């Protein structure tokens, strides 16, 4: 009872941010990046175990953000900064105003844009899970982006309309991919799989639910 856990992400160190930038700009191989991230995950898990947390997380140290990281794992996707996406938004002024009002830095936040048919090249988070399992016997929680968040963010008309008829058709692939992932995580021994759907509140609480959200 009263099990202590986290929602998922942990602050990134300067070393990790530098490595992430180097990887994204092609100056560091993926293997080299993973070795840097391994050390960061190890420290994050040590903090949780030392504190007495019951269900541990890996801190999402390997992820650019909690949903954009799928571009590392899925065919048919491309990591784009919000600044890059601005070129494709119909109403640029409104989008820029929304980012400014919400205090969102367009260059620091990246989106997993769908540019082709979606297919898992590798599992989204099974590697993260297995690494934490090597570090501790405690139960492990894994967070995944929810189907609504992914469908809404991945659909960028200028790119996605060339490969999918509409959001519903693309969304069916997103759901299939998440179902497969959930089964794989269960089979690999995950104790807890959490789906993140922050945009749901924006849909029901903001005045204009059809506008382009930044997520």
């Amino acid at each position, binding site marked *: 009872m009263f099990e202590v856990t986290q929602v998922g992400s942990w602050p990134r160190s300067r070393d990790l941010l530098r490595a992430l930038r180097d990887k994204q700009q092609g100056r560091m191989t993926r293997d080299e990046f993973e070795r840097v991230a391994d050390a960061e995950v190890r420290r994050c898990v040590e903090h949780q175990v030392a504190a007495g947390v019951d269900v541990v997380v890996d801190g999402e140290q390997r992820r650019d*953000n909690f949903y954009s990281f799928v571009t590392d794992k899925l065919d048919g996707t491309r990591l784009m900064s919000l600044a890059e996406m601005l070129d494709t938004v119909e109403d640029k002024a409104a989008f820029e105003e929304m980012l400014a009002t919400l205090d969102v830095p367009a260059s620091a936040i990246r989106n997993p844009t769908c540019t082709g048919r979606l297919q898992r090249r590798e599992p989204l988070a099974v590697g993260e899970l297995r690494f934490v399992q090597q570090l501790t016997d405690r139960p492990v929680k894994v967070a995944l982006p929810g189907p609504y968040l992914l469908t809404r963010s991945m659909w960028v008309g200028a790119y996605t309309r060339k490969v999918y008829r509409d959001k519903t058709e693309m969304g069916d692939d997103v759901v299939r991919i998440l179902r497969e992932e959930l089964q794989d995580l269960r089979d690999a021994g995950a104790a807890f799989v959490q789906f993140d759907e922050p945009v749901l*509140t924006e849909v029901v609480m903001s005045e204009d639910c059809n506008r382009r959200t930044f997520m």
Partner: protein
Amino acid sequence: MHGVRTGLHVCRGNWSRQEDVLLTGDYTPLLPAFRNMHVDQFVLEYATPRAGELRVVGEALGGRELGLGCVNPRTDDAEDPATIVARAGEALQYFRPEAIFLNPDCGFGCFANRCVNEESHAVAKLHSMVAAARVLRERFA
């Protein structure tokens, strides 16, 4: 799904420390959707007044599990365990002790380049939650 606990996390944004740019409102408009979702646990924000009252979700979804957001990931000072214990006490009006998990309202760094906190503060907040859990377990074991 059998063999794994599933959860849904819904928050009101976690990209800025300016609380006024994040959304405000309780979970009432989402209750119909929550009821239809086949998940074991709802992982929700309750560490700030922006999230509204626990009663809203408690009365509607008391049969499920609650991941009780009880520390704010965007502030420097760790919450007093007594405050967390009191919040959990409210949740106990609607959820069984076994069905209540303690967690922060959201992650400490959802966006790599826009982390909302630093590690030392995050560690202190973990310790606060664990201290609160110890008190609660003694009280309700």
